């Protein structure tokens, strides 16, 4: 009897999830299907989720890119920017978060408030002064403005990781201290393994945000050879002339793949992280 009830629960769960997933993914499916349609029929057949034929031309056409610069270049650039800044961002944010969450030092409160404030100003306002500054540094048309700042921590991740550290009982630190661990050792050997889920969450976000970031690269990169995918996608459309919609959708679909793969690979560390040891509770 109990088993039967469980089976039904399982089926109900699955059904609910399938419906939910379909509803959530409908726009995504629409985009992918549209990428296979002829450019001219995308809007006239917008209601249909079945392409009239499988037209891979849009992928070939889209990948060719612009003026001889293909999406191979854009993808390569995106990977450089994204991977470096994700590693930088997650590592430094973890360090900083530990400092804020676990160590007592004077002036901490003020710095924390400063950090929160930086998240409350819209980037659209900061970007012109920032451009002027990076231009002084001679960093325009390089990757410096896109990568280097991430090595100084990202407030969102710092705060996130802090909150996770604060769910870990102090007793663990105390015990380690009695065993003669320094603060750094407590951080690297005890706290870090416990907050892997938070770090992985940050890594996934960081990867996607950097991958998707459009304004930063647009401002700081001048030459299309340096553009990432996010900028490449914007170059298909001009409201006044012909937009190659199917190529745009095709490349949009391809550009989601790395995010998808990264997520799929990393998500289990969030939920099945290595933190199942007996340290807790």
């Amino acid at each position, binding site marked *: 009897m109990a088993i039967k009830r469980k089976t039904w629960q399982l089926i109900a769960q699955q059904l609910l999830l399938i419906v939910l997933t379909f509803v959530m993914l409908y726009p995504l499916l629409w985009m992918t299907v549209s990428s296979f349609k002829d450019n001219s029929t995308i809007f006239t057949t917008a209601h249909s989720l079945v392409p009239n034929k499988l037209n891979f031309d849009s992928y070939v056409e889209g990948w060719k890119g612009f003026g001889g610069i293909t999406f191979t270049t854009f993808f390569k650039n995106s990977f450089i920017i994204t991977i470096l800044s994700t590693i930088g961002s997650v590592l430094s944010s973890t360090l900083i978060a530990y400092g804020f969450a676990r160590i*007592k030092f004077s002036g901490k409160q003020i710095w924390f408030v400063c950090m929160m404030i930086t998240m409350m*100003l819209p980037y659209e306002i900061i970007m*012109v002064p920032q451009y002027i500054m990076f231009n002084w540094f001679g960093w325009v048309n390089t990757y410096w403005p896109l990568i280097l700042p991430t090595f100084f921590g990202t407030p969102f991740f710092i705060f*996130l990781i802090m909150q996770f550290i604060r769910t870990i009982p102090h007793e663990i630190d105390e015990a380690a201290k009695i065993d003669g661990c320094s603060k750094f050792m407590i951080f690297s050997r005890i706290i870090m393994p416990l907050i892997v889920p938070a770090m992985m*969450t940050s890594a996934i976000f960081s990867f996607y945000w950097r991958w*998707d970031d459009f304004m930063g690269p647009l401002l700081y990169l001048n030459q299309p050879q340096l553009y990432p995918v996010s900028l490449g996608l914007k170059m298909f459309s001009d409201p006044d002339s012909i937009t190659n919609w199917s190529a745009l959708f095709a490349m949009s679909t391809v550009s989601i793949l790395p995010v*998808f793969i990264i997520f799929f690979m990393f998500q289990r560390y969030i*939920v099945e992280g290595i933190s199942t040891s007996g340290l807790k509770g």
Partner: protein
Amino acid sequence: MAKQLTSEALPVDLPGVKRTRKKTKDTDNLTGYLFILPFLVGFIALTVFPVAMSLYLSFTDYDMLGQANWIGLENYQRMLTDDNKFLQSVKVTFFYVLTAVPFRLIFALAVALLLAKVMVMKGLYRTLLYLPSVIGGSVAISVMWRQLFGNEGALNSILAQLGIPTVSWLGDPAYAIWTLILLYGWQFGSSMLIFLAGLKNIPNSYYEAAQVDGANAWHRFIKITIPLLTPIILFNVIMQLIQGFMAFTPSYIIFGDGRPLNSTLLYVLYMFQRAFTFFDMGYASAMAWMLLLVIGIFTALIFKSSSYWVHYESEGDK
């Protein structure tokens, strides 16, 4: 800002303040500053200048192309006394934040709880449900969303089938904002992920102990899951509030300029228009600092309240 926040309000302990249990001997300035050094360097070298400059510009008539002339408080004055569009955008934004943020958070928590239970293909579901957050600002969404909510769109077809009167989602000023609220809820992936990670961090032993005590599922949820999740809830509430106030892309890509009748004129969208369409960067900077003030007050209040409802394992029982 710092003055408004008391030590209780902050998620960091301050030495020498009554509330903290530990004595000053635990204070370790050197180690502390070493750990936050990357932040300090970045803050001083890269952040202070643009932030300070935007504050300065808010007192000028800067238009990005020419000189910035000091005009004192004129921008702030005009904003509060002589700009109906500003007031409209404030109204729209408050409504948006107060509906969209709870909507997204509750939805994200519900899905996270569901996913935490699923056994079959859980990785796939997690991934697929996160995907909507991944195409947020793309052109495809703007095209798609207008198709979905159009008069003969998918949503109205469903409503008609169910016998519910259909609505002009895009054209009726009373409903247009709801398409943006739905869009915000649809992209619940990041909050969901954080909740999932938080759920994971709750030790199983607590549940096991509760089960031995005969607590039912609802009790376990109320007595264990929610309290232990509060640090994460606090994080999500604060970050979503900030993001909600700063939301801009959804309205920009779907309605463009606040149509119909400025009913989707989000605050940052209007600020963006002033800065880059009307070349009124000084005024836009003033708007940004006004926004900072409002978000700051909200955040401070939430931090202040957090000592009543957020449960930190690390602070244990006093």
